[in-house]
């Protein structure tokens, strides 16, 4: 570089070098040590959290391995023969519960999200009330939903009795805020130009929503629904209050008053028994649930990445 030799440049380079050296020299040793120690401490925090997760998963696999067999899926629970006991009624119960949750939560959740994003004017107090209310509901403890289910759905106004559908409705109310919040985000991500284009071509508001906005936001909504369903699948406490009885040896049906069971409730019951075989069953059940939940979550993430629209 020819111009590097000019006095002006030489002066500038010398000045920069001197400043840099001064800064490096003046950095106190204490600062360097403190900085490194701080970074190590932060890394340690992440490691502790990850170690907890790994320990939980490994323990479930190790302790559940002896009970992991096809019997788990085909046999009913048993107190007399723990080595032959399984989760069949609980698995079927969980599947039916989840089907019910989807049936309730998808139309209501998307409907509420569409109303809040496309129709509701923020000027109106009742719309703000709905919004704040949903935020609050999202953080109400799950056991409170159990109380609601017991007092309002099982007994009280709806008076359905201890049937599986009552469990579905309780879980649906529990995850409804999650679905609404996720759907709203997906709908909000559709740019306004799409709406205006559609309206300008003469489409009505509902035609715009049905033909433009909903198709564009389906991946986001589906991701939210899957995450909500996986939350409902792992929920135990509210089900204890709305009649998920623990020992159901037959395949449950949605409206039967004979009782029903669910995976996490059955795991809970096995976990309460101190015999080695029942403990192994509980851990095996946890392994099954972890695999299913991990698959659902991965699918949700894949779905989001695969179909996410960049506008």
């Amino acid at each position, binding site marked *: 570089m020819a111009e590097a030799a000019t006095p002006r440049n030489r002066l500038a380079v010398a000045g920069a070098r001197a400043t840099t050296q001064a800064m490096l020299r003046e950095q106190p040793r204490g600062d*360097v040590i403190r*900085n490194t120690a*701080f*970074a190590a*401490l*932060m*890394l340690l*925090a*992440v490691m502790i*959290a*990850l170690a*907890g*997760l790994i320990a*939980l998963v490994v*323990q479930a696999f190790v302790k559940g391995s002896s009970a992991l067999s096809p019997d788990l899926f085909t046999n009913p629970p048993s107190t007399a023969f723990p080595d032959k006991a399984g989760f069949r009624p609980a698995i079927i119960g969980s599947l039916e519960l989840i089907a019910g949750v989807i049936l309730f939560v998808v139309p209501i959740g998307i*409907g*509420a999200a*569409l*109303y809040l994003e496309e*129709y*509701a004017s923020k000027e109106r107090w009742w719309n703000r009330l*709905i919004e704040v*209310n949903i935020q*609050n*509901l999202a*953080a*109400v*403890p*799950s*056991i*409170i*939903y*159990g109380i*609601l289910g017991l*007092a*309002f759905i099982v*007994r*009280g106004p709806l008076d359905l009795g*201890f049937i599986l559908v009552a469990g579905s409705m309780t879980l649906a*109310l529990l995850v*409804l805020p999650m679905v609404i919040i996720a759907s709203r985000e997906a709908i909000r991500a559709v740019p306004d130009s799409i709406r205006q284009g559609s309206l300008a071509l003469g489409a*009505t508001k*509902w035609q715009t929503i049905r033909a433009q906005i909903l198709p564009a936001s389906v991946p986001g909504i589906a991701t939210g629904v899957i995450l909500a369903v*996986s939350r409902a*699948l*792992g929920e*135990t406490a509210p089900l*204890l*209050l709305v*009649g998920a*009885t623990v020992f159901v040896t037959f395949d449950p049906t949605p409206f039967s008053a004979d009782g029903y069971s669910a995976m*996490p409730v059955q*795991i*809970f019951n096995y*976990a309460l028994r101190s015999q080695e075989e029942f*403990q192994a069953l509980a851990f095996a059940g*946890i392994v099954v649930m972890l695999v299913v*939940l*991990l698959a659902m*979550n991965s699918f949700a993430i894949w779905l989001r990445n695969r179909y996410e629209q960049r506008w």
Partner: protein
Amino acid sequence: MSDADRIRTPEPAGDLPRRLQAPSRRYGEKAIQGLLALCGVVSVLTTTAIVISLIGPTIGFFEIVPVDDFLFGVEWAPQFEPPSFGVLAIVAGTLNVTIWAMLFAIPVGLGSAIYLSEYARPRVRKTVKPVLEILAGIPTVAIGLFAVSFLLPEVIQPLWPGDFLGGATGKPFMALAAGLGIGLMVVPIIASLSDDAMSAVPRGLREGAYALGATRAKVATKVVFPAALSGIVASVVLAISRAVGETMIVVLAAGSTPKLTLNPVESIQAMTSYIAVTATGDIPTGSIDYKSVFAVGTVLFVMTLAMNVISIRLVRRYREVYD
């Protein structure tokens, strides 16, 4: 006149060739809007139903048990004759568990958040964050079992200093085990939300500090942390509300002996676990036990509601600053 002409030379506003109103009244559109609004109302109805279903039996409960005895009593013994319903004993149980959960989750969660937002390379952050979030999605019954069968015998009992506070050996349940389990569960809440808050701090603030010769640790603690404080506090408040409302972990790991103590190695009973073990299936409607469940539920609901309101307020304020 051709179509093109009509576009170029619009008619005077006075006599438009067509009415601008829709040819029909579009009742269907109105009906759909009403239907969607109804879906939104479901959430308000849920809250109303929660409040109504709690209030009725709670009032019935206070007709039998004086409010003072309930709110300020320190003994919780529904099975005794005469029974005593001093809710402070099980509120203390909830606090006992929550304190230890937060003592674990706040440093670990905030440390993770600082690491993720200030130290980790983008690729590391992209992998570690979802992996941490898996923790939040694990069924709590699994975490409860993990707490009582691993954290308690393999972590707490070997590490506990001898006879300190009564010693930890030989105890099948303790508040600390449930606390650590809940702590593990809420770490991703704190880590993820605080990371979001810190990542939202404008780059310029960091670069300004670096230009003045600050180290990474200084930037993280003196610049980014204070700037994101309201978001961080909101995440912690949300985590506390989750910890207070958590049921299965305390049922499995904390025991069921109501005790007015904050001693971590004691077996205690929390509000949620009282509800869960009392209100299962065959409890007769109208009995005092049934009503007590709703009274405890009301206390729990009010506590978590207060924390949620604080958390929502804080988040809103922090959004105003950086949007």
